[in-house]
């Protein structure tokens, strides 16, 4: 249940029996495919989710970087992001476990919408906790959850964002643990969540590795993914971790790109880190059930994180990712808000793929570090950017974003 010193199960006692039950179910259904769980999961991912997603050659980026760049198109998954891989896996697991109710937290709403879709698909009632402030910033995702029949419960404590929503969902779970499964949205939380969510997301790299070998003749030299909590990151890296050159083959460089926000510095007085770069700048600590790298002040109080991309805006990160960074197998990098916005515009214009702002961070890193790209580069397009249009327009107007089109003129 640990990744080196990271991970563990730092949760209220009331939840521990449920976590033991989940651990047992994870081992039986996920790891051992009991009752054909994994077969059904894969089949539903295919038919409902739209897997496999393509590994697309990106002609114009390849020219630009003098590297063969391939896009792993998780933006094409049902719901518009990789999130469904995990949500569908967990809701199905809850069904196998005989649970009768689903709860989940959501920040920007991507995990919430994925969970709501999965719950509707599998016929389980679902309640989603979402910060009041996020609710008002992410109306379309709130609509989607409600359309799928989920309840959306506003969380008014604290700043009303993801951190508070997670805490509140844990409280619900602690209250209704006997019939309820908590679908955690990333590779965070108490064991077995980080490993289980990784396993559900690992389909990304399972496909990408096979596709890369088929399309290029070998494993890629560089694999890049953005990192917030780290679920798309771990999903994208999982099957490449062992491509570490130890067998004399290619050592695939794994780059986790965090949100550098507006600055990497921290305002302890205000309790704010204007970034979400916990892998790059955080310290070890315990949050939301796991020991991992955190943005915290010297006392251990959790800082308010920030990113232009709300999906990366989290003060923690998956414990396995923290471990892989410490081990040197994964490289932690970060780019700032401006670079991410420029990358958002660049990919949209050059390749006809509008990425999520989260995703744009991975592309910004590639652009800033093109000399570090190997011959074959795979970048995970973790989600599509439709949800970000309004905020990109607004942010673009407020900044001087390199290569951005004037979005407003047509309405004048």
């Amino acid at each position: 249940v640990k990744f080196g010193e990271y991970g563990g199960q730092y949760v209220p006692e009331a939840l521990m029996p449920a976590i033991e039950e989940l651990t047992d179910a994870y081992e039986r259904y996920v790891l051992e495919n009991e009752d054909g769980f994994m077969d059904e999961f894969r089949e539903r991912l295919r038919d409902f989710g739209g897997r496999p997603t393509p590994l697309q050659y990106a002609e114009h980026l390849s020219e630009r970087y003098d590297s063969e760049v391939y896009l792993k198109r998780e933006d094409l998954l049902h719901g518009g992001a990789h999130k469904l891989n995990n949500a569908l896996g967990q809701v199905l697991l809850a069904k196998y476990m005989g649970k009768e109710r689903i709860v989940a937290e959501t920040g920007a709403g991507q995990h919430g919408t994925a969970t709501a879709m999965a719950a509707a698909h599998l016929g389980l009632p679902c309640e989603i906790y979402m910060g009041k402030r996020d609710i008002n910033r992410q109306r379309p995702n709130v609509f989607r959850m409600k359309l799928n029949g989920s309840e959306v419960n506003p969380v008014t404590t604290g700043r009303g964002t993801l951190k508070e929503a997670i805490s509140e969902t844990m409280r619900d779970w602690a209250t209704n643990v006997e019939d309820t499964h908590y679908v955690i949205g990333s590779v965070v939380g108490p064991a077995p969540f980080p490993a289980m969510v990784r396993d559900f997301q690992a389909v990304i790299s399972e496909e990408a590795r096979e596709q890369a070998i088929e399309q290029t003749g070998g494993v890629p030299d560089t694999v890049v993914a953005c990192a917030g909590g780290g679920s798309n990151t771990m999903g994208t890296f999982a099957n490449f971790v062992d491509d570490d050159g130890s067998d004399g083959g290619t050592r695939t460089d794994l780059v986790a790109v965090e949100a550098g926000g507006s600055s990497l510095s921290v305002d302890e007085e205000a309790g704010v880190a204007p970034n979400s770069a916990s892998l790059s700048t955080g310290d070890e600590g315990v949050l939301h059930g796991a020991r991992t790298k955190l943005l915290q002040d010297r006392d251990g109080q959790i800082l308010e994180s920030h990113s232009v991309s709300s999906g990366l805006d989290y003060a923690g990160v998956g414990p396995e990712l923290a471990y892989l960074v410490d081990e040197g197998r994964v490289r932690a990098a970060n780019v700032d808000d401006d670079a991410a916005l420029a990358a958002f515009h660049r990919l949209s214009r050059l390749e006809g793929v509008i990425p999520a702002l989260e995703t744009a961070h991975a592309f910004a890193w590639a652009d800033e570090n093109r000399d570090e790209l190997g011959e074959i580069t795979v970048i995970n397009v973790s989600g599509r950017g439709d949800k970000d249009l309004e905020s990109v327009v607004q942010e673009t107007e407020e900044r001087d974003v390199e290569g951005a089109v004037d979005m407003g003129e047509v309405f004048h």
Partner: protein
Amino acid sequence: MGENAALKDAFADEPAFVPYLAAGDPSYEASLEYVEALERGGADVIELGLPFSEPIAEGPTIQEAVVRSLQGGMTPERFFEFVEDLDVDVPLVCMTYYNLIYQYGDEEGPRPFVEKAASLGLSGFVVPDLPAEEAGPLRAACDEFGLDLVFIVAPTTAGDRLERIMNQVSGYVYVQARLGVTGAKDDVSDQTGASLSRLREWDVPKAVGFGIKSGEHAREVVAAGADGVIVGSALVDIVAEGHEDDTPVAETAGRLESKARELKEGALAGASDGDAAAADAEEAGGDPDDESLAESEPT
């Protein structure tokens, strides 16, 4: 296992009243008054909260107390000053989340925090996000410095888990009266009797918490076999109300003192009921511990 006799002793003669307040809520000075009022009201042990920014086990009442305290500038260092400044004689238990304990001091791990706590005469800890599985380092530090580590037993805790917890607990065991978070409901769960029954074989004081808001609740819980009652939200409510209404600190302290008295007296009354019920049951040849809480209420 190291132990601090103070805690166990507090439960020795009569049912213990264990109130909780967040240190520094809503201000450092007022909070000192409030905690001292609890002792005057009859507290046998006081659980003193060191607020953490992500209190995942707390309901809205205590969450808001945490916010007030943090906004008032509470930190671990200030907390220790608070303990020094506090003029009470009953044992103090620090209730906080693990990250604050873990981060304190230069080295990684809980030892510096425990050492500091011991030096100030604190008696032990309750750490809601630290289950027995992860408690090894803190348990070791507590042993080293002679402090107690209180664990929570939930209604869902059973079998091996219960063994594991009861083998590590010291001071008293915090019996969670119902699933959920602190302060969520204002009736007393009938799960309490069953929980206490499962714990009967262990010789450690059993203090019941979660949802006890009145002397009558306290009485019911003790009558059902508890060695003490833990009350948090009902007291924090008084602090919150005083804060919102700008009530003078002395007046709020007075209310806390009388609420404490009500709860302590309820607990005492429950002990008499329990004795009587036990006597009745003995007469009838039954086992009082198997009866539900509702049935053991005085008729």
